[in-house]
């Protein structure tokens, strides 16, 4: 029983990080119909910028406490990633807005390579150990089930940001403009919505979330590396598709489900299959679930058919 509970805790923590990253994919897809493959690499930049900022702060302002240092590093990295997200949209995607859909997709892959290579030149090829400013000492919540303060922070921060984003999209002027743009660019712009600004804002918000996710990812695992964005990016993309790409609630649900499926799959697949499969099928298991969901619900768990674009 405690093993199962532990696996659920593991799954929720990983899943909430996937969910946060998946939001970035799904927002951009919802508005542009573009899969922004550079999103995982924005996460990587976020983690490495925070790492650099924290290192500098530790040298020049050692009197700052642990948590303020982390918050300062996080803020700097969020700002840098917002600028980065805007720059990517402005230079790589905006000019291709009316091009065939394949063109921006290829550009996105190109941006991903570009970011990785630049990061490799700046930060080198080595793994960096990420300063552990929040305690990773395990707390025994229930006998036999452990959770660390970092993991608790991840759960709380992700939940807060997700709620904030939903409120932003559904209750504010900007959110209304975003929904309008998602439904139809041209009509939205005829109604006086500056769609370029709205799309830029989407990228900026998505990149900020990626930066937060990057810092959480690195704080949790204690490492940062120029290629670290690839795998979480891929998983989060899967989560977004699982939940129904373009749908905010779907991204969150997809992230959590994927996290849980991976964790429980990795832990029990051998017992469930009577030793026929083992944990090397952990990822495959997750993709089987994805396949099955897409067969019965082609638009994902919460995906609904949105109005056709002109």
């Amino acid at each position, binding site marked *: 029983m405690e093993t199962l509970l*532990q696996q659920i805790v593991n799954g929720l923590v*990983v899943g909430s990080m996937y969910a946060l990253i998946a939001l970035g994919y799904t927002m951009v897809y919802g508005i542009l119909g573009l899969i922004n493959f550079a999103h995982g690499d924005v996460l990587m930049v976020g983690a490495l910028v925070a790492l650099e900022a924290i290192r500098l702060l530790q040298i020049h302002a050692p009197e700052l406490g642990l948590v303020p240092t982390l918050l300062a590093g996080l803020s700097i990295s969020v700002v840098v990633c917002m600028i980065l997200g805007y720059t990517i949209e402005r230079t790589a995607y905006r000019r291709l807005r009316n091009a065939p859909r394949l063109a921006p997709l290829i550009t996105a892959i190109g941006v991903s390579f570009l970011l990785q290579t630049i990061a490799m030149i700046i930060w080198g*090829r080595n*793994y960096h150990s990420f300063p552990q400013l929040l305690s990773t000492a395990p707390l025994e919540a229930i006998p036999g089930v452990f959770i660390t303060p970092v993991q608790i922070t991840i759960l709380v921060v992700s939940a807060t940001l997700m709620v904030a984003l939903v409120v932003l999209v559904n209750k504010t002027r900007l959110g209304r403009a975003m929904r309008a743009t998602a439904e139809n660019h041209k009509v939205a712009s005829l109604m006086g919505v500056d769609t370029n600004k709205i799309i830029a804002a989407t990228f900026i918000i998505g990149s900020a979330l990626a930066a937060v996710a990057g810092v959480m990812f690195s704080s949790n695992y204690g490492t940062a590396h120029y290629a670290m964005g690839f795998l979480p990016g891929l998983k989060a993309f899967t989560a977004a598709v699982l939940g129904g790409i373009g749908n905010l609630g779907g991204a969150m649900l997809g992230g959590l489900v994927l996290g849980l499926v*991976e964790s429980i*799959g*990795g832990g*029990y697949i051998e017992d469930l299959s009577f030793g026929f499969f083992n*944990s090397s099928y952990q990822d495959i298991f997750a993709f089987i679930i994805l396949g099955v969901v897409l067969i019965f619900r082609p638009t994902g768990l919460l995906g609904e058919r949105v109005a056709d674009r002109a």
Partner: protein
Amino acid sequence: MKYSLVALAVLGLGASAVQAQEVVKLGAVAPLTGTQAHLGKDIENGVRLALEEYNAKGVTLGGKKVKFEVMAEDDAADPKTATTVAQRFVDAGVKGVIGHLNSGASIPASRIYNEGGIPQVSPASTNPKLTQQGFKATFRTIANDVQQGLGIGKFAATSLGKKVAVIDDRTAYGQGLADEVDKAVKANGGSVVTREFTSDKATDFLAILTRIKAKNPDVIVYSGMDAQGGPMLKQIKQLGINAKFITGDGGCTGEIIKLAGDAIGPNAYCTQPGLPLDKMPGGKDFNARFKKRFNADVQIYAPYAYDAASAIVEAMKAANSSDPGKYAAHLGKVNFPGVIGTVAFDARGDIKDGAVTVYQFKAGKWEPVQ
């Protein structure tokens, strides 16, 4: 008449200049990007240092002074890329190849080198299969996984505890080593309570570690690289698992200590084929030269890459030719004092007397146990 004499003289000068500087290209290949790039660069630098030193000393083959050049390529630790790179080496006419790092890359590439007639010396691939394919000019300067797995399995079962959990990263290296560990544990009276798998790109191991925790092992053997080993140690601590931890050469680095932070303790062990750098006959001196040239620390493989490059040059010297067809036969017969000890190969092409050393984490670094 005068002009033709001048022309002759110029031609002659030109010819002698070519003679003075015949360029011999050697390939160095390892992952220079991706998660093992730091280890790959270590290999490239080892080769570079060896060839630069030979160039400085001056080597004459067949009456001509030769200049060695490194053609460095990136295989991204990927078998497919490795074969592409191998073909590029063959096409470029390199005279020998030092590489690859990963067994999964070395094995498919070795076939292409064999067909292209180019000798290959791997400084890092430890999977036994590499030298069991019957290729005449496939060598390695590092002990193979049969020797290493035996060392890990025996040490784990006899000194650390009887109940062993084995995790491997599903690479040719990780899997090959884990299989040998599995056998050696059983041969030494231990039992393997579970075998789990991850990937060389993963960072989260909580699911498999939670599963392992339920089996309550005395020892966790991790057969993979340092970049995963560091976070894994953290997560072992995080789940409150009280087992010893032992890993092979891929995790036996300074890097894993940095990455594991406060989660590494005296319960962590690792093994290295060969001897520790400061116990290698030429280790201290090599370290100083390496640091001076590259302003970087030796990770693991630089001395093996250095000796692999030296073995090729020594064989060329013995054959008095840089022609692979001529010097390949001499590679199997080299016998010279290298950084890692005496460099000599057995009939298969494995390094002779491949020793394995067990280390324990003590006071901030790996200290040899045996």
